[in-house]
């Protein structure tokens, strides 16, 4: 089936099987390998992307369902070499270790700060609940997000 999606401002048109999940489409067909896969059950959030302004897990969506959609992935966050405040905060606060969950984590935090620029500690935790990190224990991630909250 034909799919046309705009990812990070670029239009991609491809012919894919109906059964292909959006995450596989992004990684294998579009070579956007920043979004990751960490589970089979929609729990880990490593594949989180922003689809038409909504944060979703791209492993629980068929690529064909994204036809006509605007998608933002981690590759689209930084402006050239200029990191976003959030990306910088992640490094300043040592909010990542292996970096595998980081892309999804950044997308979730980005979505949070757009809808709620001044989140409480509880808001931050709730916003990141859908993203599993096995390295950091989350504490430094909370700090990083808090540091860019207004």
């Amino acid at each position: 089936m034909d799919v046309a999606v705009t990812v990070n401002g670029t239009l991609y048109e491809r012919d894919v099987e109906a059964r292909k999940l959006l995450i596989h489409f992004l990684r294998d067909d579009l070579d956007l390998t920043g979004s990751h896969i960490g589970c089979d059950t929609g729990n880990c959030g490593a594949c989180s992307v922003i689809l038409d302004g909504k944060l979703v897990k791209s492993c629980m969506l068929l690529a064909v369902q994204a036809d006509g959609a605007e998608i933002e992935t981690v590759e689209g966050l930084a402006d050239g070499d200029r990191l976003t405040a959030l990306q910088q905060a992640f490094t300043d606060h040592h909010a990542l270790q292996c970096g595998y969950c980081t892309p999804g984590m950044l997308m979730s935090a980005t979505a949070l700060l757009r809808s709620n620029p001044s989140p409480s500690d509880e808001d931050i935790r709730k916003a990141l609940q859908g993203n599993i990190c096995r390295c950091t224990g989350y504490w430094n991630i909370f700090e990083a997000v808090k540091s860019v909250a207004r």
Partner: protein
Amino acid sequence: MLLRDVEYAKPSSVAEALARLAENDGARALAGGQTLINVMKARAASPDVLVDLNGLEELKGIELGADGTLSIGPMTTYTELMGSAEARARPILGEVCSKIADVQVRNRGTIGGNLCSNDPTNHLPPLMAAIGAQFTIIGQDGGERTVPASDFFLGVYMTAVGQAELLTRITIPAGKQDGFAAVTLGVDGTCIVNAAASMNGSLRVAIGCVDAVPVLVEAESPDTVREAVRAAGLQPPDDVHASSEYRAHLAEVLAERAARQAAEKR
């Protein structure tokens, strides 16, 4: 992560969706997909056709009637419901939805999907049973019928919505004295046992995770809820998270807690 081959249909109307479902008894309606797609990843189920209901405006929307009755379109996402001014007429709805899974899932998962999948660990089936929701189902012929929760939930992953039928409306009577209590796997995780209560004249408590469908008990007051649950003679399933005995015990404790919450609200 790799699904079996499947056909994808994107109908532009409920009528067309019904037609596509009727064409093939291997066709399944795709709502939010937050359960179905995962089951398909495990290849534990493999529909021949997915009929995508996303984008069907007929199945969306929340209306608040003059008498306080809420009418909710099944394709309303949890997030939409949580943000809906109308839905605040029955505060428990938003409160419970905010505890389901996580932001990403709530952004895509739908009220109708949660109800029609009727996974025993879901939050909404017991809640709807307790608050006395009515379910409107449209048949292949376009005729609609409305059933109460007691006739809606038939078994695990089975409801009154048959093949080539769709849930079109969830109707919720006015009320505020509701409660919900659960013991979950981690904070706000998968329910081990949950219970929803509603005080509306009588006290109705529905318990989830203890049987294929929510178990409804009625009681005079919170003080007698435990007896009522005991009288229901539950035989909950055993699994890695809880013994049958533990679930039976939680059912009593949580039913009472939900009931007290409900009773304390004014």
